[in-house]
């Protein structure tokens, strides 16, 4: 296997793709989320077809919350979701498990997937983990977590500390099982103000990045333009940005300091757009990439299940052709 430093230096194209593999393998999303072999087979089909510079596990925000002891609804072809948010006060935290990644919920399954990826994929292998505010929102309900930002900071601090501990243990286990990178998904914090984000997410993200031995990518969906300075202050090795973000401004700001993933619209352009749409988006992005080795062409969020596979193939081939020309 190639060394991590060498791979990190060659991070050129790595869409956030996992769900299209479900379609390729002819399985259901539920099968992939409940069976490590099925998920690995789906990811392997994607890897062998596209050979991206980084492979991600299938995006699943329900792993940590389930391992904490929360019951999930498990539909056949939609993301698993929390049936009832069990935490309404600091006292409720006592009733939750402190998840053991080798034992609780589907964490062992995720460890097995990442172990297989690390054995077979010669690229950066990235495992998703929930971000602290996002996990807090799954435990308490997003509305309650967001209200607590204003109304109940003591409760929120207790909750975020619990979440941070669980995320650190899980991230360390993923790293021990072969993950080269953890990709921290923190979408719910994307609706906070910069000050609120700093206090209720960035502080805990710094704790996570300091405690985990492998690099981390921070992914937040949506319009995070105002949060970029705070995201950069989390000590993550990379940030992954959605299509609403002004990449030009971001790249000028980071000036090669960290890797930036983004930000082709996964729905309008890659999943359901035309090749002309892809051409336009790629040309815009690659014009920014000139002189910026730290830009990785990626999607703004996970690609949908029914992504047009010809579009995805075109995204890879055209990116490689254009990047070849631009270097």
């Amino acid at each position, binding site marked *: 296997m190639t060394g991590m430093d060498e791979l990190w230096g060659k991070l050129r194209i790595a869409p956030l793709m996992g*769900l299209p593999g479900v379609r390729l393998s002819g399985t259901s*999303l539920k099968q992939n989320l409940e069976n490590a072999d099925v998920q690995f087979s789906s990811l392997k089909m994607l890897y062998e077809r596209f050979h991206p510079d980084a492979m991600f596990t299938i995006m699943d925000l329900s792993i940590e919350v389930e391992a904490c002891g929360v019951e999930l609804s498990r*539909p056949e*072809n*939609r*993301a698993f*979701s*929390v049936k009832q948010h069990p935490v309404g006060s600091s006292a409720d935290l006592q009733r939750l498990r402190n998840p053991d990644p080798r034992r609780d919920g589907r964490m062992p399954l995720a460890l097995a997937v990442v172990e297989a990826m690390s054995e077979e994929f010669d690229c950066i292998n990235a495992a998703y983990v929930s971000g602290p505010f996002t996990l807090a929102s799954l435990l308490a309900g*997003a*509305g309650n977590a*967001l*209200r607590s*930002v*204003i*109304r109940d900071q003591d409760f929120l601090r207790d909750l975020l500390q619990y979440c941070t501990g669980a995320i650190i243990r899980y991230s360390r286990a993923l790293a021990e099982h072969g993950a080269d990178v953890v990709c921290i998904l923190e979408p719910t914090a994307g*609706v*906070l*103000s910069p000050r*609120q984000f700093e206090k209720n997410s960035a502080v805990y993200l710094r704790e996570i990045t300091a405690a985990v031995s492998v690099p981390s990518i921070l992914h937040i*969906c*949506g319009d995070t333009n*105002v949060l970029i300075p705070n995201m950069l202050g989390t000590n993550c090795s990379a940030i992954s940005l959605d299509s609403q973000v002004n990449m030009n401004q971001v790249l000028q700001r980071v000036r090669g300091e960290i890797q930036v993933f983004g930000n082709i*619209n*996964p*729905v*309008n352009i890659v*999943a*359901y757009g035309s090749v002309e749409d892809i051409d336009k988006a790629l040309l815009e992005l690659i014009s920014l990439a000139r002189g910026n080795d730290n830009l990785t062409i990626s999607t703004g*969020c*996970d*690609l*949908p*299940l029914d992504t047009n596979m010809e579009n995805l193939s075109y995204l890879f081939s055209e990116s490689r052709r254009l990047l070849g020309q631009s270097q």
Partner: protein
Amino acid sequence: MKELNDLVELIKQGEVDESIETVRKIIDEIAVEQIISAMTTAMRELGERFEKKEVFIPELLVASDVITELMPLLEPYIRKRNMQRKTVVIGTVEGDIHEIGKNIVSIVLKAEGYNVIDLGTDVGIDTFLGAASEQGASVIGLSTLMTTTMHVQQDLIRELIAQDHRSAYFVMIGGAPVSRKWADRIGADAYCADAFSTAALLNSLS
């Protein structure tokens, strides 16, 4: 009236108890329309600041909580005055349990004086169409936060067409993964980027 100005500020600050107290104090002295107007003013002012990224979702949520608590106090007076209000049926589509965006739209529309039937989350097509018909709605609002459920928006429009009822409803869609382009693609009447543009759009149709 000082209390109405106070009410605007209390709503913006998310002060539930004081807002209720203020409304109780004035509700028998003034027309209910004036209280609704104060709620509208508060939410519009927050909306302008939201647009400028001066306030964020937590501030909108706590202000929305105030409106939610005030509405039951106002309803008897609204019924008594027989106010004409356009009915909007709104919900998060089947398979999706995200509700914050939808709730804020619902509250902002209530503050603007609309009769909002909020069906909640994980709402099936039949429930949407049944409620719209029973409640005499002219607007259906469909929210989704996930790429795996956005197709339900399209399925509902197809069902309306199949039932030959498409022209009876103004169908608006919203949610993180959708866009104006998606709205055009599936034949929705409008894409709503946020609660405030949704209210402005519906007001412009009235």
